């Protein structure tokens, strides 16, 4: 047994130092030099302050902004730390709804959201991603259909012609990677920033 202890201890300590310290710290150093913006979280600044990350969705509720997908993230209840309260797009506590396909809670949430969206844009089919929560609760994207669905509301709230807003959405659509991987999508934060630029002009 004792002839096993020395190799075990030495290898554990040495390999821990290599894989647990040297490797992550070396990658941190290199990444900071080669890809400084990405390594720091792809943060977006406007007028000198951080308005978010290009990769992390944020909560939009104003009628004049495009909305992201519903988010199931929570935060500790300020009144009772043992409980949690809904806190959409809490980027310090990622999670999904974890509601199963036969859950009453899911069925009722979906029904309510579908009715609300139908009232907002009658006659159009409701895109499925606008009523389903993402896995992380931080999905930065919506489908092109979900963005186009919101065009009438946004145009009305911003007093812009619908065609202008629709043109903006179309310009923001990112296709599949290499024409093959993933799904076409629109980054909601980028779209709303572009919309702000347009309104400001």
């Amino acid at each position: 047994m004792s002839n096993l202890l020395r190799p075990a201890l030495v290898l554990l300590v040495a390999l821990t130092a290599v894989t647990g310290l040297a490797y992550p710290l070396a990658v941190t150093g290199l990444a900071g030099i080669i890809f400084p913006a990405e390594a720091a979280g792809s943060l977006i600044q406007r007028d000198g302050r951080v308005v978010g990350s290009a990769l992390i969705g944020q909560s939009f509720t104003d009628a004049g902004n495009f909305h992201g997908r519903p988010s199931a993230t929570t935060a500790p209840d300020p009144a009772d730390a043992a409980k949690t309260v809904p806190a959409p797009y809490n980027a310090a506590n990622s999670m999904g709804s974890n509601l199963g396909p036969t859950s009453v809670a899911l069925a009722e949430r979906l029904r309510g959201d579908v009715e609300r969206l139908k009232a907002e844009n009658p006659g159009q089919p409701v895109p499925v991603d606008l009523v389903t929560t993402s896995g992380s609760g931080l999905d930065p994207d919506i489908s092109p259909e979900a963005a186009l669905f919101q065009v009438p509301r946004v145009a009305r709230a911003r007093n812009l012609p619908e065609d202008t807003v629709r043109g903006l959405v179309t310009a923001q659509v990112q296709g599949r990677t290499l024409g093959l991987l993933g799904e076409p999508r629109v980054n909601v934060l980028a779209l709303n920033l572009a919309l702000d630029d347009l309104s400001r002009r």
Partner: protein
Amino acid sequence: MTFNGWIQIALFCAVVLALVKPLGLYMTRVFTGERTLLSPLLAPIERGLYRAAGIDARHEQTWLGYGLAMLVFHGLGFLLLYAVLRLQDGLPLNPMGQAAVAPDLAFNTAASFVTNTNWQNYGGESTLSYLSQMLGLTHQNFLSAATGMAVAVALIRGFSRASARTVGSFWVDLTRCTLYVLLPLCAGLALFYVAQGIPQTLSPSVEATTLEGTKQTIALGPVASQVAIKMLGTNGGGFFNANAAHPFENPTALANFVQIVSIFALGAAFTNVFGRMVGDERQGWAILAAMGVLFLAGVAVTYGSEAAGSSVLNGLGLSGGNMEGKEIRFGIPASALFAVVTTAASCGAVNAMHDSFTALGGLIPMLNMQLGEIIVGGVGAGLYGMLVFVVVAIFVAGLMVGRTPEYLGKKIEAREVKMAMLAILCLPLMMLGGTALATVLPAGLAGPANAGPHGFSEILYAFTSAAANNGSALGGLTGNTLFYNSLLAIGMLVGRFFVIVPALAIAGSLAAKKTLPASAGTLPTHGGLFVGLLVGVILIVGGLTFFPSLALGPIVEHFAGAAGQTFPAGG
């Protein structure tokens, strides 16, 4: 299902297959001690490590010595990880001021990372300091993966050697695997991931002011370095709570593709290592073919079911499949593919929430784990798990024709079959035994978030994932309780070491045997007949063992859902 979806799946299979031979050749050279491309750089480090540890690299161990060395090493690793977690509040690199991890959660997490399970009862960004993530989790990601490969190599030596006493040196296999295989690949992958947008920083969280004027705290950290090994080593423990669904762990469709390829890359290539070391590459391809048949069947069911959506969604006129718990940048096909890959291998990372999958879409991940994660499987672990099934399949074939079964010139006798059955039976014991306990005890019934059959699935999935060392979960289950932390940790330890030790025992007894020349009566083990037999044995053993429990969970839920039934929460 779409044409594009199947093209993505076909491309994935093609890339994995293309990597089998080059990676297999490289790893064979590493494990047989030959010089490699990286030797000029790494050989001095390797020699320095052996000198400091007092290891004679030429001294080999018997299967028992090999197993003991592995157990002692893991015992110490367990203590180190437990200590880091318990003491993280007083240690450096804790910019967010995380408190010490509670004893039961630290026990669970230590067991989970030492066994390559990486079950997440911890919340990542909300519980762990950067030091715990790096020194605690990242290093166990490497070492548990290296151990899986070391054990697989020892078992391969059992088949390839004749009249030998030893199966290799655990210390040498562990060191060479870490230095020559895992570290260089991870360094390259980590930098690629940063380029794709995964953060790698020691700075604390960022406070942003959103466009609508609210505050958003964005958690950051040294993420890319951990994601690289978490996938390549089939560990799967996330830096963040939402794992690879989190945009910072998996920012683009391309990063996602590389991640799923890297889950399968080493495991698939290990079949080639096996073929090369036993002197007939066709033997490795036959095993990979059996894996491939089971894999493609699983992908078809899960992708089809998720694309078809659920009766609740379809009833509301929502088309486009089941997007609850999935991310837009991946969509249905890449989410379904990820779920099947991560459970076929013992990875357990998720890029979509399995709890929100359709009943049948979620059945396949569970079945993949119940079969013992032998479809490619965990790095190394998949191959030794599959070889255990090969022993049983050969035994069954021998019974059918009434002659002593043999595989690769080795007689398969009572001792090997007994050990194989021990390894196979410990999994259902922990999976079904744990589930049975949890469904009768109040502490267990307090766990599920969903009611009805889906609640049962949440419990079954948890014990299945723990014993199979997968680590993915139906996340609705509240697992961070004394009951689940303890019971799941026991499941993980048994599921890991009660498979490894019998596998090493088989290695020892095979190595000692003579190699017989093939005769006219030998069953060829590189053709379609053998592949079919192997797949059949796996399905019969797995199906007979687990069908009743699956019937109570996902199968009932599928029919109830199709009939329009829903279940209120907390029932």
